């Protein structure tokens, strides 16, 4: 309990509050800018936080995460272009409402739903993360190894690629993590004589490359896309009738989003899709969906914003990222010398609770930013890409250099950008690569420790109940979607329904 209040006290410094407000504005702008999203924004801003204390540094990254996820709704509603993929379903009802001259109502609904969803998920985070950490406190290396394998197996279902390609991308990330000195034997691997590679390939340049620089190349393909904004005359808040109609949807989607967020590697995009579908399934007026239903907006936005809090649960409690942006935040924690996991809630409890409070605070700030600044932020979308992306590139390169002050990192970022572009082009999502790179070191270390602990008899891992459970979950995560698809095709009732 003390840590809860100490965390709040640490956050209530006036300078930090101003910084968090600025980060909220920055996050909203990032979410509204063409091609930028929460993950890219957090990766680009990570180098800015290296000289800060851990609390403001990680609070800024989580603020960017929440604010940019929310901001996707602004462009989704006003110009029918989701600022982030998590807001794709918001377009379905937000834009038709805006075309009918009710943009303010749609934005108001998105803001309120995002805020409530975000607050519910942070409260869940405050309750669930310490409980999960307590459960994991007695994990031995085999349990951690199996848990990390489970976390990596969840990569199969994320990103744009097929499960096989996602796992290949994740394994490539794990392979990259083996560059440098082996942790147990200190033998150098894949360093090719570069002393700078002895400590391994840094997370930051690779993330800047695959999220930032590869996006520059993607944007080069879309130079002729035109964006048209719907006129928003004044902010008209949703009516009491609207709130009466959607409160159940908001609560349901918040629960769905929080749960989806807690699952390792699943993020806001999946949450918003499920939240939207469930809103339609439970609605008394499902025929309005896709034509401007406020329930559709509420279902999508409450779910995607609540996934942010949920995603931080496994990130902080177990050290397994709950979403792509959480992976960047995890990298930020490691860069600051913090070890996410069960010990965080005993040895750095004040820090952990300060992050929770920061997330709670940013969700309250949305109300003001979302309702009063939406019109202004929508204009940000019209920043010409030929001005925006050269500036983003300059940020990316200086950011990649700044962490270790190494030109090699600059070239790693460039190479990662080109590789990331071709991966995306050929259907290999870059998100698993990033998560594999972060978890790879942990995976190898825990496998090595397990083998030492079990006297090289690796099969003994399967005799430990929790380890076995995680391996079974891994198999379900890898093959479940395939089997479920087959079963659905065989079921004549389901086929008829489809």
């Amino acid at each position, binding site marked *: 309990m003390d840590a809860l209040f100490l965390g709040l006290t640490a956050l209530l410094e006036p300078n930090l509050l101003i910084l968090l407000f600025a980060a909220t504005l920055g996050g909203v702008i990032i979410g509204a800018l063409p091609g930028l999203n929460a993950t890219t924004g957090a990766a680009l801003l990570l180098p800015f936080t290296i*000289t800060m204390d851990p609390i403001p540094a990680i609070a800024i990254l989580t603020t960017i995460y929440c604010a940019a996820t929310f901001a996707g709704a602004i462009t989704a509603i006003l110009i029918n272009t989701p600022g982030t993929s998590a807001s794709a379903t918001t377009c379905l009802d937000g834009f038709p409402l805006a075309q009918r001259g009710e943009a303010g109502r749609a934005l108001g609904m998105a803001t309120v739903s995002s805020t409530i969803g975000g607050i519910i998920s942070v409260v869940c985070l405050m309750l669930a993360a310490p409980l999960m950490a307590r459960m994991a406190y007695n994990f031995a290396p085999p349990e951690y190894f199996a848990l990390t394998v489970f976390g990596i197996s969840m990569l199969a279902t994320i990103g744009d690629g097929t499960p*096989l390609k996602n796992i*290949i991308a994740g394994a490539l990330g794990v*392979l990259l993590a083996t560059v440098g000195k082996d942790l147990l*034997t200190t033998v150098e691997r894949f360093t090719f004589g570069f002393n700078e590679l002895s400590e391994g390939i840094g997370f930051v340049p690779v993330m800047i490359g695959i999220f930032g620089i590869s996006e520059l190349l993607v944007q*080069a393909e879309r130079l002729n896309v035109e964006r048209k904004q719907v006129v928003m005359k004044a902010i008209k808040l949703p009516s009491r009738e609207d709130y009466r109609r959607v409160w159940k949807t908001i609560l349901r989607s918040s629960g769905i989003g929080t749960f989806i967020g807690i699952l390792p590697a699943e993020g806001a995009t999946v949450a918003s899709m499920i939240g939207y579908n469930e809103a339609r399934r439970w609605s008394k007026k499902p025929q309005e969906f896709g034509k401007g239903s406020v329930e559709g907006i509420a279902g999508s936005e409450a779910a995607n914003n609540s996934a942010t809090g949920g995603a931080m649960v496994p990130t902080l409690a177990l050290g397994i990222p709950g979403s792509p942006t959480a992976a960047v935040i995890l990298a930020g924690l490691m860069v600051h010398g913090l070890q996410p996991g069960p010990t965080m809630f005993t040895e750095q409890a004040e820090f952990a609770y300060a992050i929770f409070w920061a997330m709670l605070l940013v969700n309250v700030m949305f109300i003001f930013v979302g309702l009063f600044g939406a019109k202004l932020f929508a204009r940000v979308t019209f920043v010409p890409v030929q*001005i925006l992306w050269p500036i983003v590139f300059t940020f990316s390169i200086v950011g990649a250099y700044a962490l270790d002050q190494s030109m090699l990192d600059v070239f790693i970022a460039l190479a990662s*950008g080109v590789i990331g572009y071709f991966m995306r082009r*050929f259907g290999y999502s870059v998100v698993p690569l990033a998560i594999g790179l972060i978890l790879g070191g942990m995976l190898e270390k825990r496998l090595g420790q397990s083998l030492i602990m079990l006297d090289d008899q690796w099969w003994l891992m399967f005799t430990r109940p929790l380890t076995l459970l995680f391996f079974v979950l891994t198999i379900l995560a890898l093959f479940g979607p395939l089997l479920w698809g087959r079963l659905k095709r065989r079921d004549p009732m389901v086929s008829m329904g489809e």
Partner: protein
Amino acid sequence: MIRYAVPSGIIVFCLVAFWFSTQFDRVPPILLRGMQPADFPQMVLLLIMALSVLVMIFDQPIEHEPVAPNVWTSMGLFVVFALVAQVDLFLGLGVFAVALAWAWGERRLWGLGLVSLVSPLLIFLLFDQVFKIRFPRGLLTNLWYG
């Protein structure tokens, strides 16, 4: 063709990496605790190769548009940046930014000046003054560092 080309490329990459991994120092058995340094990377490489074979067999081929000329131009400018950055990092950034903006259709003088002069200068001052980052010496940075 792409259906086989990309997984084949990945397999070739893995084979080369596997060969490199056979060159790692080995720890004498008496000192060894756990795995040899090459064991884990080799396991991962074998997994990637096996999965790539599965991709060849099961993956649905995707129709691809050819890479847009703007993408090749942008990648070419990465090379230009890498070369000019050897002279000075910020000179490289300025040259890259103005060339990219021009290649993407920006013709307004203020726009070109903003991306090539103003933004690199502001970013340099931010990192130098606020974050105390020391950039590599070069033609332009020497003017500041003396």
